């Protein structure tokens, strides 16, 4: 389900996509309203939240959706923003699109987790248009990026040909400027600070040198870097 970290023929390095999302989901606090972007971030909803109650918000106005619908039990009037047939948790509500985005822009969403092609060490990020592409796919990302209280990214550390995705400045058109606070990649967990990227945790089996060699932009590596806990992943 989580897919390969690298194209066929290359050995996956570090965290799986589910482990990446589990790590970000560990940051969610009880009662948070959470919006998950397309792609890798969707996997955050599979994480174990224990006693924490998390309310999942979807751009199409579904507030409080639950697990994916079982095959044969789909409600053909109900999907999340990823077009997946979902269930509703107790206390769910349906609003229209303008209200769903009113919640976003007015700061009611505690965290959004988005995918990205690039993130810069000043918190800019790019996820709607690839280099040289005509048009693109914005969806709700620009609204979420400026409206959510916290913007987290879940993304691969490098491109398929090994170039850094954590960079000094984005080379492709940005989604928003200066908004990202936390980034998880297959190599570790990075906080975006006023001094650039701070390596907070490193993936099991990955060396600091690998992180340094594959990260663009300013990177601070503390004297001690804990390993990402992947128990239960």
């Amino acid at each position, binding site marked *: 389900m989580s897919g390969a970290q690298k194209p066929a023929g290359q050995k996956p390095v570090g965290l799986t996509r589910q482990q990446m999302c589990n790590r970000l989901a560990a940051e969610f606090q009880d009662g948070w309203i959470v919006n998950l972007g397309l792609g890798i971030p969707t996997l955050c909803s599979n994480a174990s939240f224990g006693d924490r109650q998390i309310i999942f918000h979807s*751009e199409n106005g579904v507030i409080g959706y639950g697990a994916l619908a079982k095959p044969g039990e*789909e409600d053909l*009037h109900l999907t999340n923003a990823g*077009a*997946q047939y979902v269930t509703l948790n107790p206390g769910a509500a349906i609003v229209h699109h*303008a209200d*769903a985005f009113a919640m976003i*822009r007015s700061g009611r969403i505690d965290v959004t987790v988005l995918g990205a092609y690039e993130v810069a060490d000043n918190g800019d990020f790019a996820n709607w248009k690839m280099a040289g592409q005509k048009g693109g796919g914005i969806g709700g990302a*620009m609204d979420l990026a400026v409206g959510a209280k916290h913007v987290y990214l879940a993304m691969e550390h490098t491109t398929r040909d090994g170039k850094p995705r954590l960079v000094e400045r984005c080379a492709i058109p*940005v989604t928003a400027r200066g908004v990202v606070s936390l980034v998880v990649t297959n190599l570790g967990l990075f906080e975006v600070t006023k001094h650039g990227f701070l390596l907070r945790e490193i993936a099991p089996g990955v060396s600091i040198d690998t992180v340094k060699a594959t990260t663009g932009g300013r990177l601070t590596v503390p004297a001690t870097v804990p390993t990402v806990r992947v128990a239960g992943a």
Partner: protein
Amino acid sequence: MKSKVFASCADAVRDIPDGAVIAYGGFAAMGAAPNLLQALADQGAKNLTFVTNTPRGSPNFPAGTPDFGLLCERGQVKKVICAFTAPTRASQIVAFSKYYEAGLVEAELVPQGTIAERLRAAGAGIPAFYTPTAVGTELAEGKETRIFNGREYLLEHALPVDYAFIRAHRADAFGNLQFRRSQRNFNPVMAMAARTVIVEIEQDILPVGAIDPDHVHTSGVFVHRMVRIKPPPDAWWPVAGKAVES
């Protein structure tokens, strides 16, 4: 009062002229109106501009369901105002993208929340508004900005349309609408933004008064034409199937 109930989708779209601007509802198939879109493809109006979340079609409709690829193929589309022109995964094939990338159809990319609010504003008598969305991006180029309380905002204009094609679950003969679950999405604001609102209705149209006033999502004030669509498989309906995410 003249009846708002039309016998067929063909009847309901018959007078749409070349050059019309049409808001097309729905999100991930729910609330979209492919039966009206099919009727418009058959009617043949050209030079059309659409406002819609995505011209990609949906994996939650059966193969062959009319989408913007069909209207492009028939040379009816001038422009689409939307939040996506490209697929969200490289493996997806989107018929519309081919026409767009070849320069045969124009597109204006707009953030999804800005589309919704521009429609809402048009339906609310508000000519323009300021939003924080897209500040500092390529989409802000050439747009008026203003600082409020130390933060920069972009001026965005209302987006009035000639027609809206939407779908609802239940309706009464006055046009009071009820949507079901995520079928609601853009449809209430598209109904507000349009001069003529055409609705596919999934159940038999009820007598006036049959829907509790507290349970009406879109007032019949906004609704002009309704067609009771046939149950599946005699009309286009969403199906259970493979969603876009893995």
